[in-house]
């Protein structure tokens, strides 16, 4: 174990945190100004490259008529439901693969192969099996996240420091209690990596699926913009997608990862 006495604290004082925020804000303001400048030069046609004001007007319209809120709700609900299902299945599969050699040799190799498959490839199957239906969307999300989560759990179990298992067995822990109280928490840093990767894959495949299956949803609005030839709408929705991604990472995954890495002694 590393000597804590010589570690340099990476925790930033409050003033630096504010400084970072100001720098970021400045960057985005400059970016928007640059964007506005570019549009003013009329290098590209207006219907190919909208200005920030057009995009804002478009976005404001969606906010005001409530369709953006509905679209976000629909898409995030699909994401959440699919994600919860893949979380449960991924934990079970990962535990099985990680703790049994025979399951690893068989099911493990299959999961490895499926993980390499781009998750968009599940869309045709989803549409054939479930039709243009809510289940199809959720299926695509599950397939997007499941294998990353499974492999994260599996890797975590394999990398559990043996000394934790020894200590736990010595203290009378075995079977399910050992799995749930020691192996799983010990694997948490690696599971989190899988969870995070699973979420990005799920989010991407959901958007791909929503482009095909047009309902009121974020992907639907995006595809709707293309249908109408409304480039401002396309830009507006893309910005919303980026913002949602950043918010989910900043409010869920980043703090989780920070806490776990720190507590598990993987960073200071």
């Amino acid at each position, binding site marked *: *174990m590393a000597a804590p006495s010589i570690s340099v604290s990476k925790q930033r004082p409050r003033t630096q945190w504010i400084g970072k925020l100001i720098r970021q804000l400045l960057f985005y303001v400059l970016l928007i100004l640059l964007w506005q400048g570019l549009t003013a030069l009329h290098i590209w046609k207006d219907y190919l490259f909208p200005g920030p004001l057009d995009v804002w007007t478009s976005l404001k319209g969606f906010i005001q008529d409530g369709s953006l809120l509905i679209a976000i709700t629909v898409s995030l609900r699909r994401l959440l439901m699919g994600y919860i299902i893949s979380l449960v299945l991924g934990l079970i599969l990962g535990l099985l693969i990680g703790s049994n050699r025979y399951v690893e040799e068989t099911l493990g190799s299959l999961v490895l192969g499926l993980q390499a498959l781009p998750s968009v490839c599940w869309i045709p199957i989803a549409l054939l099996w479930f039709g243009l239906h809510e289940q199809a969307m959720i299926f695509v999300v599950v397939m997007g996240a499941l294998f990353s989560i499974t492999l994260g759990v599996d890797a975590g179990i394999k990398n559990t420091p043996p000394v934790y298992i020894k200590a736990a067995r010595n203290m009378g822990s075995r079977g399910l209690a050992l799995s749930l109280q020691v192996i799983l928490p010990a694997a948490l840093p690696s599971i989190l990596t899988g969870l995070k990767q699973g979420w990005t894959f799920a989010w991407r495949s959901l958007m791909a699926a929503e482009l095909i299956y047009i309902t009121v949803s974020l992907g639907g609005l995006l595809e709707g913009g293309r249908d109408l030839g409304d480039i401002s709408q396309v830009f507006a929705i893309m910005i919303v997608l980026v913002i949602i991604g950043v918010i989910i990472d900043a409010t869920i995954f980043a703090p989780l990862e920070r806490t776990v890495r720190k507590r598990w002694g993987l960073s200071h």
Partner: protein
Amino acid sequence: MSQSTVNSIRDIEAYSEDKASPLAGVNSLQIEGVSKTFADGGRIVEALRPVDLSIAAGEFVCLLGPSGCGKSTLLNIVAGLDKPSSGKITANGKAVHGPSTDRILLFQEAALFPWLDVQRNVEFGLQQAGVPAKRRKEIAHHFIETVNLKGFERSYPHQLSGGMKQRAAIARALAIDPAILLMDEPFGALDAFTRDHLQDEVESIWAATHKTILFVTHNVREAVALGDRVIVFAPRPGRVIRDFRIDLPRSRSLEDHKLVDKAAEILDALKSEMQLQEQEQKNGSTIH
């Protein structure tokens, strides 16, 4: 010894009064012909030649020897976490077939669970045994006090210093109330000052609880300061070469000349054994 240590020892005495070892005087640990050979990818490593040891209940036994002589191997086998290649171990009258809470192993790296705070780490073994939450809390509280970690119940291992981690690990082991404590270089990674301090604490805990302790160390003086016996190991292949009995009165000072003499004697025995071995190896290689 600090005042709080003295107080908490009184507490332990009170705590263990109702369960004072019924085996006092009886052999606590019987090691008969225990050996271990690892087959490491085609290469055969004789980690431990057959060892015979018998250890009385309440005895403090130090296992001393250079790196790679099979001390950890033996401790893991005694803990039941590893199987011997041959031989038999009997602990408290029962044959050892696997891990048990009457023999708790303490590791060099403390091995506290990083996802549990000190309180819940100490409660872990009790929880596995199905002790009710309230009783668990009381016992944990008691042993956290014993090792002078009061006020750190809610701290996580990453917030503790190396010495505090070992204290917490000792509390976690004591909470299970094993008859035998197996300590594998628990203070190896600590500075000399903290080490001295913890040696004192372990000695007083031992004196108060009458536990049998097997204590692995590289440090000759540490072994002589703590042990009723010092078992000396030699490497390649790992084996026991001497069994010294230390009759110096306690508590012993590291500066006491009798202790220093004894340590020198033990070191000499180890050195001459290793020289003899080198000589043999040289002779062996010239013959072939």
